[in-house]
């Protein structure tokens, strides 16, 4: 799991530019699936054929990023956000483009009050000395991501894009481990979640599943003076009750709880006040898809150093495997 997570979080793939991460995941899943294909928006779908329920499992492979909107005469890049980028999270961060060009993010220092900082007053410095020099390296519309390789801190790891490569890693491991199942399983690595659940919407339409389960990170309430939230890092995968995009279908939620109890897998119940995930799009597809979410607790979400506990990931895999190998009555 550690190796896989390091590989996935180290691979480039902001919303709309998921080619590299798609290729890496495709290599991981190819020999374990009966069929692998990419849909019109770019989501990767690995199918394990079966005669039972049609289950769509989704984790998004895109990550947040900084998109270049202009290059000035001195070679500095102006940028906007792809997904939820806070100005404060990117100050003096190292970022990397698809072609390997790296830079550092900074801001106009004549700013009177740092609280007024907006992305429009920030820039990426790629070391270019002129517009022409910068243009030889980067184009308008190119996207940079945090350049923050995974680091290990005990049972825990930190680095960029745990949101949602942690979910992708869980799906890949689940596909590798699930054996005795009659259900038809669609492991979907979705695109453009961070800009509005777009990939999940179209892949769910293409699949028309009986049940949808997405795997994504969630926030925690276990750091000093954090906003109260009954989720702690390392205390097991979270079974979502609701967030801003979806209310988990009661029967899917109950099934998850029941299977966790039977197998003795620790779990937490999650109520996320803001934010959403792919299930928000999946459950409204066609005439409706009963949907639930398994969340990976994660600190410092959308920063360059998102922290997860590897135990939570392996237990999420165990929980998914037992759900998929048993009867699913909804």
């Amino acid at each position, binding site marked *: 799991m550690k190796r896989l997570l390091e590989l996935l979080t180290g691979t480039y793939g902001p919303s709309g530019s998921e080619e590299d991460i798609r290729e890496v995941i495709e290599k991981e899943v190819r020999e374990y699936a009966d069929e692998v294909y990419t849909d019109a928006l770019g989501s990767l779908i690995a199918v394990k054929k079966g005669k039972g329920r049609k289950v769509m499992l989704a984790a998004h492979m895109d990550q947040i990023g900084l998109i270049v*909107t202009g290059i000035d005469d001195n070679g500095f890049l102006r940028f*906007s956000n792809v997904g939820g980028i806070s100005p404060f999270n990117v100050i003096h961060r190292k970022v990397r483009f698809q072609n390997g060009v790296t830079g550092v993010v900074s801001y106009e220092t004549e700013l009177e009050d740092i609280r007024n900082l907006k992305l429009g007053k920030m820039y990426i410095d790629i070391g270019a000395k002129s517009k022409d020099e910068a243009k030889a390296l980067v184009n308008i519309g190119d996207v940079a991501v945090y350049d923050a390789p995974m680091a290990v801190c005990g049972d825990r790891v930190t680095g960029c894009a745990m949101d949602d490569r942690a979910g992708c890693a869980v799906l890949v491991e689940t596909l590798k481990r699930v054996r005795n199942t009659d259900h038809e399983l669609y492991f979907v690595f979705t695109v453009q979640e961070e800009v509005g659940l*777009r990939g999940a919407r179209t892949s769910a339409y293409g699949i028309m599943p009986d049940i949808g389960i997405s795997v994504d990170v969630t926030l925690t309430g276990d750091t000093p003076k954090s906003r109260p939230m009954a989720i702690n890092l390392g205390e097991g995968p979270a079974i979502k009750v609701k967030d801003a995009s979806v209310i988990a279908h009661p029967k899917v939620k109950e099934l998850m709880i029941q299977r966790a109890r039977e197998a003795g897998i620790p779990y937490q119940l999650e109520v996320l006040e803001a934010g959403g995930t792919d299930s928000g799009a999946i459950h409204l597809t066609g005439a409706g898809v009963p949907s639930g979410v398994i969340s990976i607790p994660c600190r410092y979400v959308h920063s360059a150093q998102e922290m997860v506990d590897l135990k939570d990931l392996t237990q999420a895999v165990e929980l998914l495997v037992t759900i998929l190998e048993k009867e699913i009555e909804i």
Partner: protein
Amino acid sequence: MVEVLKRLAEARGVTGNENEVRDIILELARPLADECYVDRIGNVIAKKKGSKGGRKVMIAAHMDEIGFIISRISDNGMLRFLPVGGIDQRILVSKRVLVGKDRVPGVIGVKAIHLQEPDERRKVINQKQMYIDIGARSREEAEKVVKIGDYASFDSDFVCFGDNKVKSKALDDRAGCSILLELLKDTYECDLYACFTVQEEIGLRGAEVAAYHIEPDLGLVVEGTTCADLPDVPDHLHTTRMGKGPAISFMDNSSIANKDLFKRMVKTAEDNSIPYQIKENVAGGNDAGRIQTSRSGVPTVVVSVPCRYIHSPSSVMDLDDFKNTHLLIQKFLKGVEG
């Protein structure tokens, strides 16, 4: 093309009330298309069969424009109103409008500056404090010509001025509609579905329905977009620049351009020596947002004509940008295999 643009821009079509624009488009599109019809939400769909056929290309421009809807008539005959679509309320005072089917002339008023409290003068006047004055002396008199729910649109002439520029209301997106009509004069290998959509300004509603119905293989959107190449605006916030050609979008708030289509659009411009620019901002949204996520997904790309002072009665556009946008899309469509 400019004559058609003038006719369309002067027609009134506030979101939800696109009839006048739709009638002109139907009249002009029917002789050009193989099939032309109005769908159940009010979009005009003009189909042009391809020489090879098979691949379905949806090209969309919205018919609706921002405006107002009458919400209340006060005892003294003044009309209270609500905005339809995104309008900067600072531009409203003293503007001329036309109310209802019968084009009742009115002007947007607010109490004079000497009657405002010192505190009020420093603030932007809220649209709720404004009213439309149609010269009626009483509610009864006003009700003879206007009723609640009537639409009002900006009253603004289409004027050619300066160096090849035009000034008008509703260039967003009658410019796109005119370009679609011009494109229908040609034939292509692919099947072309020119969609003149309704209700874009309040949530891309017409495009959602049209895309679901057509099930296209590829989506193209022709828009009017912001252009802030003005004094005091730093270079990196211009978004687009007037006279520099059609603006191709890599991303906005509603969609991310399909990378292949984006590259093909840029290459088409370069191969044919058509001036173009990349839209240098990630703001706003348009019909592509709904087309892209329709059914199991549609690759899309957006090309826009830069418009200064967009969403006002006096937006300004460069006619070369307008014509080059048509030319670029025409060449692009010629390159789409059937």
